[in-house]
């Protein structure tokens, strides 16, 4: 008989077994995410049906059947409508967007002067991109250039009338130029004004506090259109006879004040979230009111509410489209105005133009929201409660 030594001590860990087949690979993924239960399977079928119903149509319309270039409406109209397409054809008329692209971007800005807005756009991008990338140094100088120097340069370049540049009236501006300049000024004005309003609302001085509360709550309670109406109809009445000022400027004031009220509420949320100890600590160091706010409270408060601030920016960017109501032509306004161009009037024109405008708006808003998420993660220093 052989004697066995039954005691056994394993010296090294057993190798991990691969997960069972039912838990990995495509099949397991499908089983887990698409057909986990009977109800799930029904939902998946409904989802697939939706996608199959919509997606091919959209792709067909936007790419396969689309007309990319062409001189006039004939390329986008069916034979019955006086065009060259077979009856029943349905596709995007990108030729329309292509032909009107310059107008959609700059409005009726004189052709020979168009280098000016383009130069401003280039300067804007050159100053904005380094500001957005955290690693690039000299943020302070960069911000001063973008928010203080660029507006002056842009004003001189766009309006003209100095240095031999011919004057271009703001009524000729249009398209993305108006959308972007309205939102840029709105953002640059509404943030400081909003901060001041928020500080005023939390101030201990009763009169200041009342004024701020009344302003904020009134503006937040009425639609932007009413504010724009106010700016375009009532402001001229408020000024002495004969004094008029530019429609573009009036829209700017309306949009900025509107955004400032919303911004104030966002900032107030941040101020309230700062624990009392921070205020008291600043007081005990002997800091004055503005030092306390500027050095201790606001840096922390603003960091907390970055998502809210960016949401307000996005809202304002979208709201600039309302200036169409007071007959100014921003991107959406100029697209809509071109629907009535007899050269391009087809059944597909409106849809194509609007989808194009929607895409531009979407790019900017989506970009802003993604960048704010990125900043939020980057600034998250781990002190979250």
């Amino acid at each position, binding site marked *: 008989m052989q004697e066995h030594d039954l005691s056994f001590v394993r010296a090294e860990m057993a190798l991990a077994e691969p997960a069972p087949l039912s838990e990995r690979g495509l099949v397991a993924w499908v089983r887990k995410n698409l057909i986990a239960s009977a109800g799930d399977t029904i939902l998946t079928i409904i989802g697939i049906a939706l996608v199959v119903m919509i997606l091919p149509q959209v792709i067909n319309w936007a790419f396969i059947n689309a007309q990319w270039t062409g001189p006039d409406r004939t390329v986008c109209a069916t034979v019955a409508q006086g065009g060259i397409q077979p009856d029943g054809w349905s596709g995007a008329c990108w030729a329309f967007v292509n032909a009107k692209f310059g107008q959609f971007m700059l409005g009726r800005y004189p052709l020979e002067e168009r280098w000016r807005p383009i130069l401003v756009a280039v300067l804007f991008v050159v100053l904005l991109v380094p500001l957005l990338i955290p690693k690039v140094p000299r943020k302070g100088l960069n911000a001063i250039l973008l928010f203080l120097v660029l507006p002056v340069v842009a004003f001189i370049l766009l309006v003209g009338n100095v240095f031999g540049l011919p004057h271009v009236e703001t009524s000729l501006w249009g398209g993305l130029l108006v959308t972007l300049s309205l939102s840029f000024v709105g953002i640059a004005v509404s943030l400081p004004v909003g901060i001041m309003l928020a500080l005023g609302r939390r101030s201990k001085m009763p009169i200041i506090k009342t004024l701020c509360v009344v302003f904020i709550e009134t503006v937040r309670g*009425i639609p932007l*259109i009413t504010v724009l109406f106010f700016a375009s109809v009532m402001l001229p009445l408020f000024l002495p006879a004969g004094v008029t000022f530019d429609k573009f400027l009036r829209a700017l004031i309306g949009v900025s004040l509107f955004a400032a009220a919303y911004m104030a509420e966002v900032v107030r949320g941040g101020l309230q979230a700062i624990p009392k100890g921070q205020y008291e600590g600043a007081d005990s160091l002997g800091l004055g009111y503005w030092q306390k706010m500027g050095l201790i409270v606001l840096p922390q408060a603003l960091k907390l509410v970055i998502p809210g601030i960016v949401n307000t920016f996005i809202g304002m960017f979208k709201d600039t489209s309302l200036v169409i109501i007071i007959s100014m032509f921003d991107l959406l306004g100029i697209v809509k105005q071109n629907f009535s161009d007899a050269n391009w009037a087809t059944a597909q024109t409106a849809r194509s133009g609007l989808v194009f405008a929607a895409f531009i708006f979407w790019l900017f808003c989506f970009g802003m929201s993604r960048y704010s998420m990125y900043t939020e993660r980057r600034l998250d220093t781990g002190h979250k409660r």
Partner: protein
Amino acid sequence: MASQEILREEPSRGSFINDPKVRGIFFQAVVVVVLVALVWWIANNVIANLTRLHIASGFGFLRGRAGFDISESAIAYSSDSTYGRAILVGFLNTVIVAVVGIITATIIGFVIGIGRLSHNWLIRKICTVYVEVFRNIPPLLVIFFWYSGVLAVLPPPRESINLPFGSFLNQRGFYFPRAVWGDGSWLILVALLLGIAMAWFVARKAYQRQMATGQQFPVFWTSVALIVGLPLLAYALSGFPLSFDFPKQSTFNLTGGFQVRPEFLSLYLALSCYTAAFIAEIVRAGIRGVSKGQTEAAGALGLRPRSILRLVVIPQAMRIVIPPLTSQYLNLTKNSSLAIAIGYPDLTATAGTVLNQTGQAVEGVVIMMAVYLALSLITSAIMNVVNARMALVER
């Protein structure tokens, strides 16, 4: 010695210029003076401008003859009606589109929001695409898209698209059968109100009984039976007084039925789709805000998944959801003023027309602001009551 004397002295207060109280009073006084001066200057300018333009101030113009037509009105209106009535018509149109839009947006928003938390990958992705598309596009663009991109290119009335239940869709809007209430149909309404009252009573009694004895009562099905059954019974008893006026196709147009104009339809669809994307995000945040421990504890108590959702998760999620939901409702109401861009006669559009015709800019803008402010305050008051009922009862 010297130090003791200093200790006995009154603490130095410094110059009164540095006293925060004095500074505060001075600063506020300056603000008041500047503000009063500004208001006085503006008032002077307004009076000068108005006399120059020969416009009488005051609200007397509201009694004047309007002289313009309104395409859609809930109350009797003709061009001979007064300006005041025209503004009232606009106000009612705003309320109608806001209420219908809020209901639809809430339904779509809750479905999409819950869909974004689904275990199903496909549903989750579809809902995410919906939210990301609609959140990042201006509402005005969505309105235009429905109006000139979709509804305007529908076939003309002769080639109307047939839809179920005898309704039609064409360039001129959506037509569906109109209910014609015959004699005795008031009984149905009475039965409906009675059913709702009884359902409420039953729910109360059942709750009291469950609190006292622990016995449950099928409240939901009883309520359905009462609210649907009683009117049906009344309908049968009063001899089927309800009939439908179906839209019929004639040579150039559809006659009969109830027409929903494309202006209303596109505004309503756009506001619902747009606001639903925001509501979806709120709902998602609300449900995710209920900690997992709550679900697990409820499971440990032996509740079924459906009961966990109904009794534990949703009541807590609603607490997080209601305040931002209120501001979305307010946003929808305010966004309904975009109607002016496509010619739906809402408050802003009619008041704007009145303002242009009479030149009463100050009064027109004041009316608009006052009405929207009032609407906002009423909506938030209602939602505050709901919120107070939902709020956590703490010690």
